[in-house]
């Protein structure tokens, strides 16, 4: 990695992107033998809390697979469906013209919806056939979400959010001031949250309910907290929580660019990765609980297993499992950086792709169950079909069905 791969004024330090002052502080700590201490790290700003609530005492409701990024608005990555327990075969490949960076989502009828960097967004039948294709004006990095009324909503790099019917017709198209590369989250009342130059809330007709501005473009996909606020990370080093009325709930400076999306744990804690190679745990009222250092950027979105373990891949080529207390549980080494977010099936099996071209299945204990060479980098997360098939996008432009 070089400085050019780091955003803004960040520099490359020991394989991670960080601000210059952070790099100096890190060096100082290394010299003092403090590097890697995730708790109470000197110099980390305290979180700014606004309108914090008493922590909930009841566990969150059982998570179900929702057709949106990471299986639902809380981004746990968990699914009520099963994936393959043994090395699957390729059932079919649907070819697009360029990399498939976005993660597929599966609709109620089994149709798979996914965008490609060839500027198309597609509906693919369970047999791999094309149902319809939408030709966009720029790339699709965003994963789609399906609203309660069946509308498919997706962001596009052409600075728009597009709402399509299940037949592929356009309901509406909302232009925004910045590219929409993040994935929408949809609340139970149908409000659509996306990030672009900040956080937008759109009503089901695409009208803007509010815009909470950010200083620069945001690529972190918003997550909806059970407490009613929406949280995302920013490239200027903040985790931002915004209430449903558009007002700031709190923000926490983590002093490192964030592309990862947040995930919400069963106790309401928020977990998010940073470009500085850290997994950060934040309480529901915006206070940092701990940081876990890994050896490379964490750009994937953490997944939460049924027992509350946080699983996330990093640019250090490893899949990391960390307990809710911040203690490391296990790591799985691959031969490539991990940009994709892990998904977890109903039996706790973890599925994640790596830039070593392999798709991995891992047991809850971190044992490699199987891996399959897909031929090219995998940055997309898998989606679970109702029949045990998993779907994933690959950098060769293919959308693969594996069972």
């Amino acid at each position, binding site marked *: 990695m070089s400085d050019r791969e780091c955003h803004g004024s960040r520099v490359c330090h020991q394989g991670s992107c960080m601000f210059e002052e952070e790099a100096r502080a890190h060096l100082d700590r290394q010299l003092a033998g403090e590097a890697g201490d995730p708790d109470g790290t000197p110099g980390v700003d305290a979180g700014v809390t606004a309108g914090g609530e008493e922590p909930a005492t009841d566990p969150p409701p059982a998570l179900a697979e929702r057709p949106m990024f990471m299986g639902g608005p809380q981004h746990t990555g968990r699914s009520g469906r099963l994936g393959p327990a043994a090395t699957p075969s390729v059932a079919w490949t649907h070819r697009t*013209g360029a990399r498939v960076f976005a993660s597929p989502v599966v609709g109620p009828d089994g149709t798979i919806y996914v965008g490609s960097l060839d*500027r*198309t967004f597609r509906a693919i039948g369970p047999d791999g056939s*094309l*149902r*319809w*294709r*939408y*030709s966009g*004006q720029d790339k699709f990095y965003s994963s789609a979400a399906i609203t309660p009324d069946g509308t498919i909503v997706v962001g596009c790099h052409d600075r728009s959010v597009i709402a*399509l*019917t299940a*037949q*592929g*017709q*356009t*309901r*509406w*198209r909302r232009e925004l001031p910045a590219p929409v590369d993040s994935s929408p989250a949809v609340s139970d009342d149908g409000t659509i949250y996306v990030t672009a130059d900040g956080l937008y809330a759109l009503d089901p007709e695409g009208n803007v309910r509010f815009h909470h501005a950010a200083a620069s473009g945001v690529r972190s996909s918003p997550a909806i907290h059970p407490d009613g606020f929406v949280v995302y990370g920013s490239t200027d080093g903040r985790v931002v929580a915004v209430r449903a009325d558009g007002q700031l709930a709190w923000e926490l400076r983590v002093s490192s660019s964030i592309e990862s999306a947040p995930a919400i744990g069963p106790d309401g804690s928020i977990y998010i990765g940073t470009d500085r190679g850290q997994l950060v745990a934040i309480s529901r009222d915006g206070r940092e609980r701990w940081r876990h250092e890994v050896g490379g950027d964490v750009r994937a979105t953490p997944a939460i297993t049924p027992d509350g373990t946080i699983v996330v891949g990093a640019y250090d080529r490893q899949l990391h499992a960390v307990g809710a207390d911040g203690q490391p549980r296990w790591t799985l080494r691959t031969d490539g950086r991990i940009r994709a977010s892990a998904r977890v099936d109903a039996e706790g099996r973890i599925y994640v792709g790596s830039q070593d071209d392999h798709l991995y299945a891992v047991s809850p204990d971190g044992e490699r169950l199987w891996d399959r060479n897909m031929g090219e980098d995998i940055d997309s997360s898998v989606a679970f079909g109702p029949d045990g098939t998993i779907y994933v996008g690959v950098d060769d432009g293919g959308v693969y069905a594996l069972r």
Partner: protein
Amino acid sequence: MRAWPLVLALALGGCDSCGGGGPVPFGLDGSAGRVEPDEEPRPDRTREAPTEGRALPAGTRRVEVEGAPIASERSLRALWAHDVDGDGDRDAILVAEGDPAEGPVHLLFARRDGAQFGEPRVLGRAAPAGAGCGVDEATIATTGPWLVARATVTCEGGGGGGEEVFVLSAEGEPRVHERLGTIATDEPGAIRLALGHDDVDEDGRDDLTVEVALTTHDREDRLNLHWLDRPSGLSRQTDEPNATLDARSREALRALRGDPLAAIAASRAVLRLHRAVCAEPGHARLRVGSRAGLDCGDSEGAGRAITTVVRGHAARGEAMAAIDAYAALEDPGRRINDERRRYARAALASLPGGSGLTLTEGPPVSPPPARDATLSALGFLDEDRVLVRARAPQIWTIGGELGPADPGAADVRVLDPQKRFLVGSLESRCGATRLRVAPTASIAPGVIDAEAASTPTLYGAPDACADAWQPGGAGWRLLGWAPQGIVAAREAELRVVPLDVSARPTLPPRTLDAGELPPAPLPAGAATLDGRFRVELRGPAVLLYDVQGGAAPQLLWPEGWADREGTPSHPAVSPSGRRVAVVQGGRVVLLERASN
């Protein structure tokens, strides 16, 4: 003659008030050209007429001739003063700007009586033009025995305009003998008229000659038209331009055997001139009177020329160019007889046949007429079955028989996926094309409720001109209404008109980039469901486009194709792109490639 010293003195005095809007004190500062008297001077021939008038700046509303003013509400752009009625004082002929709706150029005559001019009367007007058209410059000068007034008209936005030319006599009672002009069009190249005089019919009287010069790229083509001077006025010699076109096309044909490239070039020059000066092709750039183009009838020269073009390209192995020319063989204004058709077909037959291409005759069918706003009557349901959208729809299983199809399958209309809207027609003007879209609920059989129709733009700038919309798609053919919107094709270009669930535009229409797949699915017909392959017809030629195979289409031209009767219609392509079906001679004909 007594006026000459005064004229000379005034001319030498110069003009010191020639700014816009100010009086022009003399109006005669052009050289008082000496006119050599004829051996037998004609009573109507002026000896003292100036050869050139004076151009006036835009906005001039008042001029003076020897102190006598002429005022006008119109902007005066040129002045020619001469004693046309022989009463000893100079009268004036003027070019004035007019209301474009009445004609942007007016030719005026103001008779002078003593110290005053009478109210100018209009001798002639240019044809009405669109708003924003005005005179750029104007001149008046003599050409032989006539006075020629010219004005260049330009229009805002670039469309319209041209040159207006009035040929008039300026003795006694001035009158316009002929009005000519050039028409600004989108056609390439520039057209110029050069007026002169010559005794064409050798009757001792000068006749009017008009040289039409057409400049295209680095080439200039010319021909001469003549108006003979008769006691009643000017009479156009009607054997032109056909005589010239005929002679030059014969010359080109003679060159065909030895130098087909030169024969093609010479023939194309004939066709360009024919198109520019004759009314029949519909693209005339010469105006005579109020008509665009001359009545040339069916031109032998143009017919011979286009046949030579077909033969020349075929001789050079240039299949697509030969086919394009063949497709234009019987365009309006060309005399094509059976012999020329035979020569043209023979030329195409000499083209190399497509290797690995097989032809299979299918069953007889009676599809509806092909229209640019409807689907093809044929559509592949899969690799082996072809739907025939006829009054009684049928399915042809390749290698088998015709069987019945669902009655609903007969619909050739372009409908949205929900079947709530349809495209009624395409219409075009000034390079723009738009669709007429209406709710299906508003349609009585064969009639579209005009109030209910919307008109999304398919191509171009619909407000570029105020001409009436004309039916027709200007070469655009609808491939279908995908969920994202309507997809249309014209040669290598694919275009999308994005429409929402209510058939309202969501984005401006756009042309897809090379290699970009269109929105899908498309209905079975001239394109595959996924839009990757599509087939287009150009005369007898069947062209297969592969979006992922580059811009150039593959010509499907099996052995003996040129000899087949009937022009193919209703193209369809199979999902793999290997099979293409057309209707020809009342039957389904299948063309099959060995491989993609």
